[in-house]
């Protein structure tokens, strides 16, 4: 017998079969028609011990470079922010890690409270009262928001800024096309790199949309003037849907304060590892009046039979397990533990730390931008304000430059050539994790690369 986690000895199995009244394990599967049963052993590698497993996985992991060994200036929606050790320490505790969705509030007050506090803290960050206890990631949260807008407005047309992440655009297509939602795009202002507000106003004046979806900082790193955009939207009968980086609230008024109807975002910067593009967190937040359109789990307060307050999953009649084909979404498993990561992250940094973090990101990115300004041959195609990410025009192929930098142990940014009329260009992101000497080294190496 094999397998590290199997339990019974042959003798125990016999005993148990005896109790059941069945002769052999095989007979347990009598319902399976003989003609489809597998008549051979699965063609998989044979079982291995813990140390063999460890050596195989370590060897695979060593085939990857990682952001500990490289300076990482790649952003594009996922960022190499510090994950406080406290976050990892808490979420690895078995009571959280090995639990299921908390269907039994009596057994799960702790995890329900953590999710509730996620909703509360995230609500501070978005400035809107309702937060679901997670969508899959920033991209699917944007889909969720788009669909919410359609449902709220009873209209299957949405208008989208062309400066959202490419991946998000792709995901919108995947989900909305089969559902018959029509997507139209608004371009950017070639000077600032922000949404072309004139075009926006024009489009909204001419057509009816369920919502306008835009992003800040946008895919060129430009921090949009949310208030101005919102004012334009409000003149039409269309909802404003903002996809934002939560860290921005460390510096700016919250989207809610600025009048956004539905706020979504990628939660990865909040204590979630990069995971090679693996699991992250979709933030989704909205106004009270739209609560019944929200997808996914919501934790709220109920009373137990003694009348005491207790946390519980609430408002389930929107969800698939109750509403079935009428549900706001099909989401069932979500990103609960990553939401809790974000909650602990916000708890660790707190008011002062969260603001400090945003400031430091700004300061480092602007330091680098200024230093790069001294390099001959670079250009900065957009004049709009930026936070911790910006576009640099290069005098030669971005691919070559990035390849050179990779050889110097630098992930130098993302190629954004041939977009928005750019020729050779890269999108560079800076986080608190980059030291001054790393930034200076990057400047030197980029200088080398474009010589």
């Amino acid at each position, binding site marked *: 017998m094999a*397998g590290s*986690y*199997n*339990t019974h000895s042959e003798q125990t199995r016999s005993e148990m079969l005896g109790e*059941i009244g069945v002769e052999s394990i095989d007979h347990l599967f009598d319902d399976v028609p003989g003609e*489809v049963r*597998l008549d051979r052993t*699965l063609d*998989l*590698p*044979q*079982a291995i011990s813990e140390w063999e497993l460890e050596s195989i996985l370590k*060897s695979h992991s*060593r085939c*990857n470079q*990682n952001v500990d060994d490289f300076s990482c200036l790649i952003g594009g929606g996922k960022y190499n922010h510090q994950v406080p050790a406290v976050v990892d320490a*808490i979420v690895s505790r*078995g*009571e*959280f890690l*090995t*639990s*299921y969705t908390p*269907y039994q509030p*009596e057994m799960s*007050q702790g995890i329900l409270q953590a999710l509730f*506090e996620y909703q509360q*803290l995230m609500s501070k*960050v978005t400035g809107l009262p309702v937060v679901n206890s997670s969508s*899959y990631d920033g*991209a699917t949260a944007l889909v969720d928001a788009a669909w919410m807008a359609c449902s709220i407005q009873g209209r299957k047309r949405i208008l989208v800024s062309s400066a959202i992440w490419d991946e998000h655009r792709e995901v919108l297509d*995947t*989900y909305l096309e089969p*559902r018959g939602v029509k997507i139209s795009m608004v371009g950017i202002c070639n000077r600032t790199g922000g949404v072309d507000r004139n075009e926006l106003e024009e489009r909204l004046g001419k057509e009816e949309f369920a919502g306008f979806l835009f992003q800040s900082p946008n895919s060129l790193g430009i921090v949009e003037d949310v*208030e101005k955009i919102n004012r334009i939207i409000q003149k039409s009968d269309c909802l404003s849907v903002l996809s934002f980086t939560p860290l921005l609230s460390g510096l700016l008024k919250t989207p809610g304060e600025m009048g956004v109807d539905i706020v979504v975002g990628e939660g990865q910067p909040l204590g979630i*590892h990069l*995971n*090679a*593009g693996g*699991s992250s967190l979709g933030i989704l937040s909205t106004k009270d009046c739209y609560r019944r359109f929200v997808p996914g789990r919501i934790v709220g*307060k109920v009373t*137990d039979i003694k009348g*005491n307050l207790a946390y519980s999953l609430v408002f389930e009649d929107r969800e*698939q397990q109750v509403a*079935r*084909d009428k*549900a706001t979404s*099909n989401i069932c*498993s979500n990103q*609960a*533990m990553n939401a809790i990561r974000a909650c602990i992250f916000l*708890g660790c940094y707190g008011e002062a*730390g*969260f*603001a*400090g973090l945003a*400031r430091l990101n*700004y*300061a480092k990115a*602007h330091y680098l931008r200024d230093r790069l300004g001294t390099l001959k041959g670079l250009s900065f195609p957009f004049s709009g304000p930026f936070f911790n990410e910006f576009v640099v025009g290069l005098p030669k192929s971005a691919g070559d430059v990035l390849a050179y930098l990779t050889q110097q142990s630098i992930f130098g940014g993302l190629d954004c050539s041939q977009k928005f009329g750019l020729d050779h260009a890269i999108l560079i992101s800076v986080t608190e994790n980059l030291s001054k000497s790393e930034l200076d080294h990057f400047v030197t190496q980029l200088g080398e690369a474009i010589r």
Partner: protein
Amino acid sequence: MKQSILDKPHSGRGQNSVFDREFCVDGIEFELPGLREDPLGLPDLTEVEVVRHFTELTRESYGVDNGSYPLGSCTMKYNPKRNDKLAALPGFQRVHPGQPAETMRGIWRVMYELQLMLNEILGMDAFSLQPAAGANGELAGLFIKKYFDVKKEKDRKVILVADSAHGTNPASATMAGFDCRIISTNESGTMDLEDLRSNLRPDVAALMLTNPSTLGLFETNITEIAGLIHANGSLLYYDGANLNALMGIVRPGDMGFDVVHINTHKTLSTPHSGGGPGAGPVGVKKFLQAYLPGPVADYDGEDYFPSVDKEFSIGRMKSGFGHFDVLVKAYCYILTNGPDGLKECSENAVLNANYLQAGLRDIIPPVFDRLCMHECLLNGDLLRISAYSFAKRLIDYKVHPPTLVGAGCVYFSDDLGSAILIEPTETETKADLDRIVSVFKMVWDEVLHDAEFVNNAPYSREISKVPMASKEVI
């Protein structure tokens, strides 16, 4: 209810280690639109306060590490610690998805090999690891209706689902732009073939089936069903939530399924983490391979890399590449068990469920009187109190309640309103199972003596019983 993190007295210090000596932020003018002046309202706590707060919250929670968790349809088996450890290797955890492909070959290798192993376990030809969870896998699978568009069969607008289907099945159908038709269950607990036949019209794109069903039974007529579906030009969709009964024994692909999804957080032991992240790989037969969401992992005999069929792929299900951090644990699980180990998992899962069914039949007989698969559906009608209340008392004996109406995500039709779905999984020992049986019997005795007492359970937790479908207090 513990004190909320927002109500803790703020120490007023906050995280004062957010600084870099080389960057003074004090004098900076932030040139951004909409600078904030008022505080956000986040708490300012010291690190030890944060640690204590969340440590305390974990202590009011319950996972597989704490004891039996026989939540039917959720397959709460042991989550191996070694997998958690290896998933956290910096060469996995600290890799940015935007890195050049040649700096992440190991990632693509793991994904490629996992795809192949899933092909073999499920009898499919190709997998995409993109979907974020089971329901997302369903959706991806249903988006493959593009196949009909390409074939110019645009009128296939209906998805058939069993009446016992998980809520995600109809919800996914709607999200993919379909209408649903429900197929009923017959007396022996399997799909009613008559009803199926009568609903199988030219507008049917696919039948979604869980096998074993959410009633814990194997669809004995599966080959006939597959024949009917295919004869109608429709696709047969496999909801793999219950795959744990079948590894190494029978493969969905061999049963005739064209599209499948699995939940790695069920069959393949990845932690469910209180709700997620999970992962829901979607697999297909050869003729649908091009439609898979991408990128998928590919291999040219030398390098491992992402690839996607530009023409046919249904597109991306999410940003990034699928839940690598979760998937790598599934990969570890398969490698550790090997083919014989996986088969034994399924054997023991079914053995354990039948052992429980046999042990409990005196007090809670099976709904369908036959052998079950990896979970048993028991009839709570004879219980004298509601199954809901009965289950709450189990908590005091440190047994997580099984799935039933009001607890767990499975859908039971009205005539199954007091049914109890128990899935012990293979990692419970005989002693564990014996204890579960004895706890049920103890509670049963308690009900006979003092039903009111049991009705007001649990008594051992921070809060008292929360009534079913409680109204939210705002």
